[in-house]
C-alpha cells in the first residue's frame, strides 16, 4: 500500500472510531418533564407518567422515602413548604406500584411539631396504610463518611440511607445566600448536626452530600413559588401561583429549568453550577430533553 493511502486509512478510521465511540456509548440526554394545571393530584400523576411512570422508579416491596420540605412553621399558601396534595399523590402512586412502606420526614428549621402540623402534610397523609410521617429521631442519624471537597463526614438519617428509593420533593423558593433553593438543596433535610456550619461552603457541601445519597427522582413543587424573603417567607405578596410541577431523574436539569421560573439563568445559581461541575447532572437546557406533560 502506498504511504499516502495508509495515512488516509488511519485518519478516516480514527474519525470513524471517534464518532462511533461518542455515539454508541454516549449518555442518554436528561429528560425533564413539566406539567401544569389546577388539579394538583392530576398534574402530579401526569408529570410522573411523562417520565415513564412510577413503576420505573418503585418496584414491589420497596421502601420509599419521599422527602418534602416541611421545614417551616407556615401554612401551605405561604409557599414555604411542599404542597400536601402533591405529597399525597406521590405517596399513593408509590403504594400503587407496590411499595412496602412510604416514609415521609424532614428536619425542620422551626419548631418540629408546628412545622409538621402547619404544612398540612401529616393531615393529608393521615390514615393511608403503610405511609408513615414521623419526627426524626436523634438516635437514627448515622455518622456517614463523605470524603468530599467540603465535608469529610456528616450525620445523615439512617432511614434515608437505607431506603430503596429516594424521592425528593422540594418547593421552589427564593433564598438570600444561594439565591434560590430547589432540588439540590432539599437534601439538607436528611442532615443532622450543626447544619448552619456548611453555609460557608454550601455549594461544595451540597454536592458532597448529593454525591453520597442518590436521589432517584426529583419533583420540584412549583405549584406556587416564593419569589422573595425566602426561605421562611411569611407574606402572601411574595407568593406567585404557577400551578406547575417539574420532574426529572437529573436533579441539576430540574433545578436549571426551575430557575427559569424566577427569571434567572441557571448559570447564575452557584449551587447548580457546582453540582454540574461535580458530574451530578446537566445544566445546559439545550442538551436536555423537555417533555410537556
Amino acid at each position, binding site marked *: 500500500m502506498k504511504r499516502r493511502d495508509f495515512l488516509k486509512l488511519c485518519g478516516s478510521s480514527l474519525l470513524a472510531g471517534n464518532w462511533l465511540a461518542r455515539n454508541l456509548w454516549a449518555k442518554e440526554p436528561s429528560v425533564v418533564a413539566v406539567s401544569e394545571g389546577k388539579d394538583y393530584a392530576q398534574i402530579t400523576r401526569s408529570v410522573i407518567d411523562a417520565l415513564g411512570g412510577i413503576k420505573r422508579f418503585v418496584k414491589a416491596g420497596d421502601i420509599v422515602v419521599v422527602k418534602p420540605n416541611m421545614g417551616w412553621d407556615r401554612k401551605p399558601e405561604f409557599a414555604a413548604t411542599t404542597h400536601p396534595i402533591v405529597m399525597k399523590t406521590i405517596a399513593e402512586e408509590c403504594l400503587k406500584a407496590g411499595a412496602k412502606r412510604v416514609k415521609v420526614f424532614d428536619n425542620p*428549621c422551626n419548631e418540629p*411539631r408546628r412545622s409538621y402540623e402547619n404544612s398540612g402534610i401529616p393531615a393529608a397523609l393521615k390514615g393511608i396504610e403503610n405511609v408513615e410521617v414521623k419526627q426524626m429521631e436523634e438516635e437514627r442519624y448515622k455518622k456517614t463518611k463523605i470524603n468530599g471537597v467540603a465535608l469529610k463526614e456528616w450525620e445523615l438519617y439512617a432511614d434515608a440511607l437505607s431506603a430503596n428509593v429516594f424521592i425528593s420533593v422540594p418547593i421552589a423558593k427564593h433564598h438570600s445566600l444561594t439565591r434560590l433553593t430547589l432540588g439540590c438543596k432539599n437534601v439538607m433535610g436528611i442532615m443532622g448536626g450543626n447544619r448552619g456550619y456548611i453555609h460557608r461552603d454550601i455549594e461544595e457541601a451540597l454536592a458532597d452530600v448529593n454525591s453520597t445519597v442518590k436521589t432517584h427522582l426529583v419533583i420540584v413543587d412549583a405549584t406556587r413559588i416564593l419569589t422573595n424573603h425566602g426561605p421562611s417567607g*411569611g407574606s402572601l405578596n411574595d407568593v406567585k401561583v404557577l400551578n406547575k410541577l417539574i420532574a426529572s431523574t437529573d436533579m441539576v436539569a430540574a433545578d436549571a429549568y426551575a430557575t427559569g421560573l424566577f427569571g434567572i439563568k441557571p448559570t447564575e445559581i452557584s449551587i447548580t453550577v457546582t453540582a454540574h461541575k461535580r458530574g451530578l447532572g446537566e445544566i445546559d437546557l439545550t442538551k436536555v430533553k423537555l417533555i410537556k406533560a
Partner: protein
Amino acid sequence: MTRKVSNPEPVTRDSQRPLKITTARISQLLFLAFFLVLFVITDYRGQDEISVAVNSFFRADPLVLVSFFLASGAFTWLLLPGLLTLIFTAVLGRFFCGWVCPLGTLLDLVSGRIRKTAPLLLLRGNLKYYLLALLLFAALFRMNLAGLMDPMALLIRFLTFFLYPLVGYFFRQGWVGLYSLLGDHRDVLDGGYTFLRNYLLPFRETFYPLAFLSLLLFAAILFLERYERRNWCKNLCPLGSLLGLVAHFSIFRRLPARLCTDCGDCKEHCPTAFDSEVLQKSNCIRCLECHARCRFNRVKFRPAMFKGPSPAFSSTRRVLLTGALSGFLLPRLFAFKHPANESKLLRPPGVAGDDQFLRKCVRCGECMKVCSRNALYPASLQAGLYGFFTPIVIPRLGYCEYNCNLCGQVCPTGAIPNLPLDEKKKAVLGLAVFDKNHCLPYAKKLNCMVCEEHCPIPDKAIRFETVEENDYAGKKLVLKKPYIVENLCTGCGICEYVCPVEEKAAVEVFAKVKRKI
C-alpha cells in the same frame, strides 16, 4: 397550751390506719387527677389555641388574687374564680384545703407512710400569720412574692422543672437504648412509644435551672410530715392561712366545737384543728375525718348564728406591725440587680416593663411548661433575688416561635398578656445585635447568612450588603454581610439560636434597657 402527744397504751394511730373514703377524699382524688391531667395537656398539641383553662387552679387561688390586687392595684377578671373561692370559704369554711388542694391531697396520701415524731412547737402559734402578713405587705409595697410560697406553684414547679423532665429522660433513654440493641426492629414497639411521646411525655429533652431547688422545696414540705400530719398546711401555708382567716368567720360550723368529755378521739382523728380542747376554726379543713370515724355519730356541720367577733389569732397588732415593717423593708434587701444581667434579661412576649411584670407574676411555671420551643426558663439571680422562678428567655437554648402565643394563653394573672396572634407577632422582646468579632463574613471572610435565613419577619429584620473583597490570599470574593433593621426586629432570638459559630453566637438578643443616670 398543748399536750405533748404520748401514748402509754399501743393504739393504732390514725396516721397508720388505711385512709377512710369520705366525700372529701373522693373530691381530693378527683381534683388531684384533674390537676395532673391539666398539667400534662399544658402543651402544644397541634392547635394554636389551648382549649381547657389549664391554669384554672391558679385562677381560683385567692392568695394569687389578693397579692395581685395589692401589688398592681387592679382587678383582672381572669382571677374572678379566686373571688368565688373566697366567697365559698366564707360560707363553707376552709374546704379548699380538704377537698381541692392537690398538694394537700399528696400530703394525705404519703403521710401515712412517714413515721411521726413529736410536733415542732417552733412552727406552732402565729408563725404562719407573720409569714402571710409579710407576703401581703410586701405585695402592697409593690413586691409580689406570693408565688414563691403558693402551694400549687410549688407543686407545678416541682413537676415542671424536676419530675417531668426526669420521667421523659427515663423513657427516652430507654427508647434510645432499645435502638442500639434492636436497630430497626425497634419499630415494632413504635406505636406504644409514639403514644407516650405524643400524649404523656415532654416532647423535647429539656433540663431546667433551679430543678434541684424546686425538688428541695417540695421535699422539705414532705419532710415536715415527719413532725405532724399536714404540717405545711397547718403551720406554714400562706394560702391556707388566708383561707383560715376567712374560714374563722364562716357560716358553717363544726359541732360540737370542742372535744367531748367522754371521748376525745377527735384529737387523734383530726389532722389540723385540735391542738387543744377547743376546735381551731381557722384550721378545720373540712376533711370529714372526725365525721367518718365518730363512734357516737355526734359530729355535724351546720350553719350557725354569728356569735360575735373572736380573734382568729392572738397578738393581732404585733403581727400586723411586724408584717408591715418587714414587708416594706425585707424585699429591699433583695433589690440589687447587676447591670450585666439586666441587659440580657429577656421576658416573654407582650411584657411591658419588668417592674409591672414582677408585680403580677406568680411564678407558677405554666408558661415555662407550655412554651413550644422551650425558650422560657426560671430566672435565678438574673432579675435580682426577687425575680427567682420568674420566666426569662434564653435564646441560645430556645427562641420565641413567631406564630405561637401559648404563654399568654396560660398565664393566670395576665402578667404575660394574652395577645391575639397578629399583635404577638409585633411584640418586642429585645433587639438582636451582631458581634462582628465572631460573625463569619466580618471576622473570617466566610459567607453564612443562616441568621437572615431564619428571621421570621416577612420583611426580614436581618438584611445584607453584598460586597466584593479580597480574601486573605488576595483572591476576589463576594461576601454577604448581614445587618439588623432595628425597627423590624422583635428580638425573638431565632438568629441567636441558629448561629452556627460554635464558641459563641455571633448575633445576640439584648434587652431594651432604659438607663437612668
